[in-house]
């Protein structure tokens, strides 16, 4: 290393000094993490935010409520397996489910661009109605704004949700313990590929549908059976890798997974090869991980496999102590490497 020190590093330094918001700030990767840690969390400092969970759990009188919100800016609006309406309902329902809360009520706010086809709006609203009914949640309040043509992208939807917590567990990264087992509810990468394929006009032998689905049912079954759930996380933006890394960092543990145990559908894997993407970082809209103690893991897996949305559940890894805050993966060749959080969204490669 003494020799290396003689090199003077004078490469140009890029101006990523935070003066302007970049797309990566919303990409679910390291940049977004920085925005949260650097601006939002310190500004809105609260006990609940520090849990770094999908929603906040609030004690109000004798009742524990979960509260969450999410905005949906997906492009294309309609894609195989869903649309912005199904996402807007399932996304918020799932964030509540990840707090272990039974979803009850949603709000919905629309920001519409002048000139947006009324027919498309009807389709979105109808999707929201059907999806809400499936999860037995009610849309009870809302808002509509219209912006000038060119000032929006057709339609943006925000939903917020309230659910009730009917158990005494603390489902949070803070509850994760050394020795816990990581269960994954099924194959990964389908939503990301469905969106990417539609966006890029790629077609495959068979259409790849988004995995968009409500997740409360399997979570409710785990709770009902008395499984000691330590943490739940749906694997949306940033995918499986980012979800695991966030938990490992918050809980100060190491999570080790096995590459061969993570299910990726063959067509999804093929599309990823073509596009140069890693399925472990692709968004899912109907997948989650459950971290449970070893003694409950077999039972939890059995319960998950009995529900359609989690019928492909598998055990993918385990929690250990060191190095803290790190996710490692045993490759198919038996070597070990780390999983790193991406800076922003995955970028398609040159060749």
């Amino acid at each position, binding site marked *: *290393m003494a*020799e*290396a*020190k003689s*090199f*003077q*590093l*004078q*490469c*140009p*330094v*890029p*101006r*990523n000094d935070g003066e*302007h*918001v*970049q*797309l*990566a700030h919303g990409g679910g990767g*390291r*940049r977004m993490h*920085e925005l949260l840690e650097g601006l939002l969390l310190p500004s809105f400092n609260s006990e609940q935010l520090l849990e770094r969970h999908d929603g906040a759990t609030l004690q109000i009188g004798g009742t524990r409520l979960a509260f969450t919100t999410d905005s949906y800016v997906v492009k294309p609006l309609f894609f195989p397996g869903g649309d912005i309406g199904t996402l807007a309902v399932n996304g918020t329902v799932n964030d509540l489910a990840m707090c272990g809360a039974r979803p009850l009520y949603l709000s919905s706010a629309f920001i519409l661009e002048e000139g947006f086809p009324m027919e498309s709006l009807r389709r979105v609203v109808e999707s929201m109605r059907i999806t809400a009914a499936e999860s037995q949640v009610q849309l009870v309040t809302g808002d509509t704004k219209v912006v000038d043509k060119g000032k929006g992208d057709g339609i943006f939807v925000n939903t917020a949700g309230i659910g009730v917590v009917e158990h005494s567990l603390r489902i949070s990264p803070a509850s994760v313990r050394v020795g816990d087992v990581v269960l994954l509810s099924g194959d990964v990468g389908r939503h990301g590929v469905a969106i990417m394929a539609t966006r*890029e006009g790629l077609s495959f032998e068979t259409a790849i549908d988004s995995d968009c689905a409500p997740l409360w049912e399997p979570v409710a079954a785990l709770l009902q059976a008395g499984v000691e759930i330590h943490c739940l996380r749906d694997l949306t933006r940033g995918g499986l890798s980012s979800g695991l890394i966030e938990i490992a960092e918050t809980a100060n543990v190491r999570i080790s997974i096995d590459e061969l145990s993570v299910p990726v559908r*063959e067509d999804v*894997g*093929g599309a990823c*090869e073509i*596009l*140069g993407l890693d399925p472990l970082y692709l968004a899912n809209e109907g997948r989650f991980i459950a971290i449970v103690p070893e003694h409950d893991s077999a039972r939890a897996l059995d319960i998950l496999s009995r529900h359609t949305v989690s019928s492909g559940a598998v055990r993918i890894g385990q929690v250990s102590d*060191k*190095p803290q805050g*790190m996710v*490692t993966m045993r*490759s*198919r*060749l*038996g*070597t*070990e*490497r*780390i999983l*790193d959080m*991406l*800076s922003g969204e995955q*970028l*398609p*490669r*040159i*060749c």
Partner: protein
Amino acid sequence: MRFVEEYRDPVAARQYVEAIERAVTRPWTLMEICGGQTHSIVKYGIDELLPKGVTLVHGPGCPVCVTPLELIDKALQIAAHPNVIFCSFGDMLRVPGSAGDLFSVKANGGDVRIVYSPSNAVKIAAQNPDKQVVFFAVGFETTAPANAMSVYQAKQMGLTNYSILVSHVLVPPAMEVILGSPDNRVQGFLAAGHVCTVMGFEEYEPLAKKYKVPIVVTGFEPLDLLQGIYMCVSQLEEGRYEVENQYARAVRREGNRVAQELVGKVFRVVHRKWRGIGEIPRSGLGLAAEFDEFDAETRFGVSGYTAEEDPECISGLVMQGARKPEDCTAYGKRCTPDHPLGAPMVSSEGACAAYYRYRRLREPELVSEERE
């Protein structure tokens, strides 16, 4: 996944590792040319499976990394133009120029679009006749045919609002620079499979002969790489220096003649500056006279611009195999993919990014546990 899984088979990989162990009697240093190979090696930990004496060093085959600073600056200037739609492969958007990157131009209101193919940029040009559409034509011989085709098509379509900002580079001249260096420690090459699908491997034969160095055209999957390494060390052990083709399922000796003809028609060989390395004579492609109306540098009046790069920047040494990313004092500290100091930390094919993504901060307990 058929035709992919087979090349990642752990049992066959083990057999190749054992074959390499049996073949090797001395230490050897090999260079894989392509950044895609580097990423595969680090991702699967292939270098860790090899016997101790066999060292892999990482080559210059990362198009993002070798694109000179001044060309990034030119791209930033053109992309910031209000009447321009600037199209690029995704990788190039995060590469730092002297002042910012294409993402920051986009954040400031520039119309910067990621495309998967230059033909999409031609399509965008046809759909937006009132805009100037520029494609950032970077890359090695692999991307040259598609980029050439876009210009050829634009000419046929009579498009006057399409141009390309060209920074094509060629592999053999860069190999010659490495081999000719007095500090060279590379004893054998794994040539870049994708480059050779286009160019074939005839042009490597004089190099192998002149420098007495084995060159094995190699693919990108773990078994491709292990087989390529096996073939290369076998040649070294036997005192042979030939060009061999591991990637025979994709590469023919003569390459893709149709693609080569198109490239020869649209482009001509030029001197080219490589980021971190400097100018290499006859090491790149520029537009041929017949197509020079499609040159974005001329169209936007940026051809005279130059930017100074520090000749001591270690990224140049990393790309010539003289240093490993971990030898850099800034690696993983002042230089990360979020705040890159040099291009090899940005690109998905850059050696520094590969090390950072897959094996950053290897704490002692992690390493020792693996060796047990």
